[in-house]
């Protein structure tokens, strides 16, 4: 497998890897580093890649594990502290401010979810993977995935309603 073949295989999901890393690591810079590191790892194990049926799922699992490792390491925990009040800049909307604010609220709400739910909602609602793929990526049973997803969606919805009714009702 040479370089161009490898890139042909991995480039289609580089953004997905990046977004998942960002979801977990919060800061863009950390996510970029993680993505870079991950693709380098994939490149090193390029001989094995040919044997995998679903490279994308494999890469997503690697991303998940790598991000968890980063979060566990002390270095990253310092970084998350720094970035706790970090503002979303790239996903800004050019609609009205209130609307943008509400959309950003969703981002913050997802931030507060447990790691597992974060990953699943990212994979399902943002990246639109089907359940089989998600099960493989997170190594969970389908029912567990559904439960986590359902909980995440309900939590986000309830929190949004709470925020919007604040001071009104």
């Amino acid at each position, binding site marked *: 497998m040479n*370089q161009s073949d*490898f*890139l042909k295989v*991995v*480039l289609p999901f*580089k*953004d997905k*890897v*990046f*977004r998942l890393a*960002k979801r977990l690591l919060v800061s863009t810079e950390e996510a*970029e580093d993680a*993505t*870079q590191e991950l*693709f*380098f790892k994939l*490149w090193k194990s390029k001989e094995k890649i040919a044997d995998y049926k679903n490279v994308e799922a494999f890469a997503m699992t690697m991303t998940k594990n790598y991000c968890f490792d980063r979060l566990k390491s002390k270095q990253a925990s310092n970084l998350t502290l720094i970035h706790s009040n970090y503002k979303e800049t*790239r*996903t800004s*909307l050019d609609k009205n401010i209130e*609307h943008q604010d*509400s*959309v*950003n*609220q*969703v*981002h913050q709400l997802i931030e507060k979810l447990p790691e597992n739910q974060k990953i699943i909602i990212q994979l399902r*609602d*943002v*990246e*639109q993977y*089907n359940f089989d793929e998600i099960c493989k990526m997170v190594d969970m049973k389908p029912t567990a*995935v*559904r*439960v986590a*997803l*359902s909980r995440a*969606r*309900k939590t*986000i*919805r309830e929190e*949004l*309603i709470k925020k*919007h009714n604040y001071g009104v009702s």
Partner: protein
Amino acid sequence: MELANIEKLIQKYLDAETTLQEETTLRNYFTGGNVAPHLQEYEYMFNYFTTTKDETYTKPILLKPKNSKKTKNLKWVSVAASVVLLFSVFIGNQEYKKYQEEQQAKALYAEVSKGLKLLSTNLKKGEQAVATLYTYENTVNKILKETK
């Protein structure tokens, strides 16, 4: 799409039982504007999901790590440093041994010279005694000669 139908789908969506197709239907409804007021929160959710999906990784992917050369250099530097350290310890040890030997030799020399001095002073004493003995004998001989 009818509102009743959307509400049904929403219920399924919250229970995580929708298919991807149904979710696309919901997404289209909520991102298209024109959303029923009591379902507004879903509009935010789906808008957020679609906007985040536009985010891309813009940096080029490097297949050779930038810092590999650095680490390699670091490896060799550490090897060199350890060799230097070993060498310096070795040299230092040798120097120390030399110094110690010198000290020992000096101490030995001092002791030997002290012993020799002692010997010489004692010998001098003996010589003097012998000298007095000679003078005594000479006088005795003189006296004996005169009496003869």
